[in-house]
């Protein structure tokens, strides 16, 4: 190859907080190398551009599209499909694109409830205002359209075919480097792999000492002074590390916080939440139903904890309340 | 208040014939098969228990032994061979000795030799007395009429005197029985009316022994009734018609026919009983205490000598008849004077009395149960 062709890349955020884009910027000087080595064709948060520009590209013209955020509305879906069509490699970047992420927790309630809470029944809303965003509105005889809010949140892979997954909320900046380098160097792992994570769990990298486990009581972090050298779970502090894929560098436990599971389940585990539930409940140190209930009562909203980053990726995916 | 157990009582009862009572483990089969068991009178199990434990006072106050006729069903059903029927029999013997205030009964049941010696002594004294009277007042060759060796009015007077003594003795003992079981029993509060109302029980039970007929096996009842009626007939003849019976030598059928029937009855029943006891033909005849044998042999002797003097007199052998008469009296007197108050014979009084008192107890219990408790007592009880 006489002249190295510049890498054509696009970045996009779906239903996301923006943290993933910040993670890309957190690569610091490396971003300059990226800018030098690649043509950033589309990156709404950093580069000016319109959807039409992307639509104008030939199919597969992009080498790499990095999509962060979940799919919450029709716009997210349209862009996801667009980027899929235009790029050779589509990466689901970050917990939201990978598993549904924090927005995915919305799956525990219905769309109507969300709208009601946000626009109608809320202390901060002026009384008398009864406006709910509608996909189509007639305004002065003109039809206005806004994206359709979906009934639930989807992972990117529920919508389009995804080539690679980069987990994390947000992914560690090194992982951003790794992905780009892998693409540049053409050293890509098999399709559908999770990049930047191992097959083991966070415990593997965690330096805290681990013993046989038995839990007599659960504590919330403010309730006890923890031993920084001992497994958090053994101290009664919730930590999802044992049910979470490693790769983050044990960021939370090293900061004296229980792992929150953002890297998702390790390979072979279908449902991070139920698997963690199975492990956690098994080590409760009681044979008395009433006592077990008592111990469990110290776990407020276990479901939201267990699926903080992955409810749409769980087996039941969403609330099935009538 | 706890009652003291007396482990020695069981040894004591052995002398009365209760040899197997310790084998009982209170399964209750005996009481289950007994047709006489009713609430308040559960036997043989309960008396056997009291006996094992040696609760003398409780035993003394129980009427249960007198409610049993010893048909033997219980013994045949006992899985341990504890002989409940025989235990009840032994208890009757023991109770007889307890009711007796003289202590003679206890002596007799304890030693058959003492009983035999006493019988021999009384018999010889009687014979001697009558001989003395006969030789001093009459002629050995004359059986009846003027100059008779033993004139019937004299014998008659003697009979009545003896009967009076016996009745007094029996009455004292029966009184003790009443006191032990009813009068002095704090558990029984019998109204006087009950004594009166139930009085009919005495003759009914005495003459029909109908409770015995309620036992599963009827033959013992029939034989017992037969023996008892024969004896009674003879007693009536002797006590009220001695002169007529003794007169002769011609036969006065109007009186003698009863004597013959009674003699045949006595001989048959006694013969059957002796045969049964020696061959142990039936459950209730398997165990024989010495007192049973003495009683039967005495009765046999009395009957035989009575029959003999009658035959001798009718056949004209007056002297031989007089000799037989003396021998007869020498047997009759100890039999009645010793057996009736102090030994087996006593049951002729105690059994009907026991049944009567049982009836009084039932009436007393029914009365206690029918008393409506005041609201106050109900509240406390609940």
């Amino acid at each position, binding site marked *: 190859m006489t002249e190295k062709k510049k890498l054509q890349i696009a970045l996009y955020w779906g239903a996301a907080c923006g943290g993933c884009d910040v993670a890309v910027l957190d690569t610091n000087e490396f971003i300059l190398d990226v800018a030098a080595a690649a043509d950033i064709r589309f990156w709404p948060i950093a580069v000016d551009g319109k959807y039409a520009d992307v639509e104008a590209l030939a199919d597969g013209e992009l080498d790499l599209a990095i999509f962060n955020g979940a799919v919450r509305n029709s716009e997210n879906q349209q862009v996801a499909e667009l980027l899929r069509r235009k790029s050779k490699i589509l990466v689901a970047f970050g917990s939201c694109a990978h598993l549904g992420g924090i927005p995915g927790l919305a799956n525990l309630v219905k769309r109507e409830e969300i709208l009601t809470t946000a626009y109608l029944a809320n202390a901060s809303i002026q009384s008398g205002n009864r406006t709910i965003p509608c996909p189509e509105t007639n305004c002065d005889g003109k039809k206005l359209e806004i994206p359709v809010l979906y009934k639930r949140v989807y992972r990117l892979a529920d919508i389009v075919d995804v080539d690679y997954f980069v987990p994390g909320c947000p992914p560690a900046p090194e992982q951003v480097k790794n992905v780009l380098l892998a693409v540049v160097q053409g050293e890509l792992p098999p399709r559908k792999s999770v990049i930047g994570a191992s097959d083991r769990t966070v415990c593997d990298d965690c330096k805290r000492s681990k013993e046989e486990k038995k839990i007599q009581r659960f504590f919330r972090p403010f309730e006890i002074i923890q031993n920084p050298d001992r497994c958090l779970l053994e101290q009664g502090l919730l930590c999802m590390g044992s049910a979470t894929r490693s790769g983050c560098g044990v960021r939370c436990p090293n900061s004296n916080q229980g792992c929150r599971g953002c890297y998702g389940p390790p390979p072979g585990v279908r449902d991070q939440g*139920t698997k963690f*539930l*199975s492990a956690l*409940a098994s080590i409760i140190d009681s044979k008395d139903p009433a006592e077990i209930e008592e111990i469990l009562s110290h776990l407020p909203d276990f479901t939201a904890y*267990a699926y903080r980053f992955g409810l749409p990726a*769980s*087996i*039941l995916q969403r609330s099935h309340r009538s | 208040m706890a009652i003291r157990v007396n482990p020695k009582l069981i040894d004591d009862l052995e002398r009365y014939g209760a040899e197997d009572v310790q084998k009982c483990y209170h399964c209750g089969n005996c009481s289950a098969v007994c047709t006489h068991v009713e609430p308040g009178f559960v036997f043989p199990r309960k008396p056997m228990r009291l006996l094992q434990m040696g609760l003398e006072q409780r035993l003394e106050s129980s009427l249960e032994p007198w409610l049993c006729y010893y048909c033997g069903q219980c013994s045949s059903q006992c899985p341990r061979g504890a002989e409940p029927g025989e235990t009840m029999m032994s208890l009757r013997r023991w109770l007889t000795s307890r009711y007796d205030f003289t202590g003679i009964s206890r002596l007799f049941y304890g030693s058959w030799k003492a009983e035999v010696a006493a019988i021999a002594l009384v018999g010889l004294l009687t014979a001697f007395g009558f001989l003395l009277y006969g030789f001093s007042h009459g002629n050995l060759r004359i059986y009846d009429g003027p100059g008779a060796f033993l004139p019937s009015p004299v014998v008659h007077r003697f009979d009545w005197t003896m009967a009076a003594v016996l009745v007094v003795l029996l009455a004292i003992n029966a009184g003790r029985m009443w006191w032990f079981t009813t009068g002095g029993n704090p558990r029984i509060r019998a109204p006087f009316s009950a004594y009166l109302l139930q009085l009919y029980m005495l003759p009914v039970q005495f003459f029909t022994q109908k409770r015995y007929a309620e036992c599963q096996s009827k033959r013992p009842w029939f034989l017992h009734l037969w023996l008892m009626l024969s004896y009674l007939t003879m007693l009536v003849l002797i006590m009220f018609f001695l002169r007529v019976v003794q007169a002769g030598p011609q036969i006065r059928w109007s009186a003698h026919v009863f004597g013959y029937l009674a003699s045949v009855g006595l001989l048959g029943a006694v013969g059957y009983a002796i045969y049964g006891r020696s061959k142990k033909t039936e459950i209730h005849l398997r165990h024989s205490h010495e007192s049973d044998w003495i009683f039967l042999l005495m009765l046999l002797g009395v009957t035989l000598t009575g029959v003999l003097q009658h035959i001798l007199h009718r056949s004209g052998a007056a002297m031989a008849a007089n000799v037989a008469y003396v021998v007869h009296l020498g047997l009759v007197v100890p039999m009645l004077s010793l057996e009736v108050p102090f030994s087996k014979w006593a049951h002729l009084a105690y059994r009907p009395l026991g049944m009567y008192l049982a009836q009084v107890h039932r009436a007393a219990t029914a009365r206690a149960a029918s008393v409506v408790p005041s609201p106050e007592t109900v509240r406390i009880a609940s």
Partner: protein
Amino acid sequence: MSFEPKIVGFLCNWCSYTGADLAGTSRIPYPANVRIIRVMCSARIDPTFVVQALAQGADAVLICGCHPGDCHYSEGNYKAMRRFPLLKQLLKAYGVEDDRVRQTWVSASEGQRFAEIVTDLTERVRALGPSRIHPELLNDQRER
């Protein structure tokens, strides 16, 4: 035709599965709605199995193990006992009705009890109507 629920039963091999067999050998009838999956111990029943069955169209799930204290593996059923309340909490958050998932103890001699449990569960689920989970998950792919 009335609604016939599909019930998946996870039964431990030593007590409950044997108890269900006993219902058979004793010819104790019960509704045909339950399909039994044998595991060696109730402790093997991963809560993931339960949600998986629900997601795949089960109208109800039944979990049976040995009575507490009777486990063939000495304490396996206690582990099942510990997991269940948390699983119920989780299912409640997902909006799954309480009657759809039941855990109970059936010994090898309780054929009659097993039949009664299945009968009762079937009736309750019939009254509840079909589970929405499976159709909703399918529908989510078609209609957003």
